[in-house]
């Protein structure tokens, strides 16, 4: 340190003068501070939960190893995949009270890494990248951690991976859920996590252990361990809220058959044609405009303009010629 520097003779007057000239230190805008805090907090919570699960997992491994070394091969985690740099997460439909980073949701909102989305008495549908559809039920809080990770802090999150292979991991306090081409729902509460699989397959990482659930299965995880398995029908009422907030079907230029596939996928019903002629009509009929109604409400209205009719019975939409 230099001894001849004027700072060594810092008087109150000089200090005051220097500080006044420098002025107050700049502060980060509130929305940015809130966004960064959400992202860091989500990461911290997940890291703490991971450490706890790892400790539990290490104990499990130690016990298991004494019983059967082969068991260890089942405990490998899948390799981490790198996020794509420019992935867009946007709001495609919202109803009721929804907040983003503490402010009311506005049209065309895009979620940046760290953004926190909170629904009160409202629901919201997101487009995550090119293919994934995410929907939040009422009283749900999620944070976009990065391009491939969403932290479900509480509430219910429905995922439809569409026809694509985009990766997504849902972090909860009790485990991480990933999918393999599927429709599923994750419910996070303080004391447990539930996962319901409507189609396809999911994996749930519990520290170093991993469990799977297939179409029609439910899982309940309490404090990092699987406790219950059950069943759920594809057209169960458990999916109703997700259907109600489904993104609008962009019908313009698409066929009636594509519309019927959408209705079937969103409602969890099988689609059957009563005849080859009915199938041919659906395939060659082209639609115009956009369908904003719920799938099952839109079905009779759209078919009204065609030579087809639909009846719903025993989990099936039967489409036939009038």
């Amino acid at each position, binding site marked *: 340190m230099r001894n001849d*520097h004027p700072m060594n003779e810092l008087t109150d007057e000089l200090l005051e003068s220097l500080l*006044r000239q*420098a002025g107050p230190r700049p*502060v*980060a805008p509130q929305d940015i501070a809130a966004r960064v805090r959400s*992202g860091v907090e989500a990461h*911290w919570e997940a890291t703490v939960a991971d450490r706890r699960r790892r400790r539990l997992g290490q104990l499990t491994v130690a016990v298991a190893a004494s019983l059967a070394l082969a068991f260890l091969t089942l405990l490998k985690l899948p390799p981490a995949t790198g996020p794509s740099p420019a992935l867009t997460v946007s709001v495609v439909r919202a109803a009721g009270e929804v907040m983003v980073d503490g402010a009311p949701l506005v049209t065309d909102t895009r979620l*940046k890494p760290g953004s926190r989305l909170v629904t009160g008495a409202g629901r919201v549908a997101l487009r995550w990248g090119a293919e994934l559809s995410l929907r939040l039920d009422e009283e749900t809080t999620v944070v976009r951690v990065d391009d491939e990770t969403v932290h479900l802090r509480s509430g219910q999150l429905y995922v439809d991976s569409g026809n694509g292979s985009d990766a997504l991991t849902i972090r909860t306090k009790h485990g991480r859920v990933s999918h393999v081409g599927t429709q599923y729902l994750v419910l996070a509460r303080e004391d447990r996590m539930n996962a319901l699989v409507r189609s396809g397959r999911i994996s749930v990482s519990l520290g170093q252990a991993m469990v799977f659930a297939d179409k029609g299965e439910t899982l309940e995880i309490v404090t990092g361990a699987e406790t219950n398995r059950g069943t759920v029908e594809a057209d169960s009422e458990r999916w109703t809220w997700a259907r109600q907030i489904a993104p609008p079907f962009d019908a313009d230029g698409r066929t009636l058959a594509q519309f019927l596939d959408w209705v079937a996928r969103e409602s969890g019903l099988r689609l059957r044609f009563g005849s080859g002629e009915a199938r041919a009509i659906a395939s060659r009929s082209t639609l115009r405009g956009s369908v904003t109604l719920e799938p099952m409400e839109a079905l009779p209205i759209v078919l009204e303009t065609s030579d087809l009719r639909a009846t719903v019975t025993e989990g099936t939409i039967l489409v036939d010629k009038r």
Partner: protein
Amino acid sequence: MTLHSEDRAMARRLIRGDRRAFDRFFRDNFPRLFRFAIARLHGDEQATAEVVLKSLNKAISKLDQYRGEAAMFTWLCAICRNDIVDHLRAIGRYREHIVLVEDSPEVQAVVDSLAAGVSMSPEANQNRRDALRLIQVALDQLPPSYGDALEWKYIEGFSVAEIAERLCVGREAAQSLLARAKRAFRETYSALTAQGAETLP
């Protein structure tokens, strides 16, 4: 070597999942780290937010490696500095990497300009602006309560009683804290100006 035992304790509490520790960790470090980064990222708030988020998340992941050999904020700045370089490389602006006054060994000359008062020379005025920013950098190097107390008293004009209330301490404790803050500021500022970038976070 001075071990930063309070910061080590903070790291341990964060690892254990103590929410009050997280609140304090973020409140104490985010504003300062944001200022550290934005000065090096051409004032780009969005890029700064992304870099700081990345750095803080990285630090959270590596908390078990933090040994308290440097102050927590110094450690965070080291992580952030690397992330800033990565960001500038990614957007092809690494060659424009900003060299700040506090990163320069010639910083003393700049500081000396403070004593010269306002000048009409553009170069001298730039030096003066740099030197004034250095004061803010020095404030950020202090424990957060020191920097805040000095700012409240000398910039915003709060009384000692008001500062005591803000810090939730008695009047005498606030007075004593202000005295320590002034001493720490003088030492930090002198070290900053005398040693240049090598010792800076």
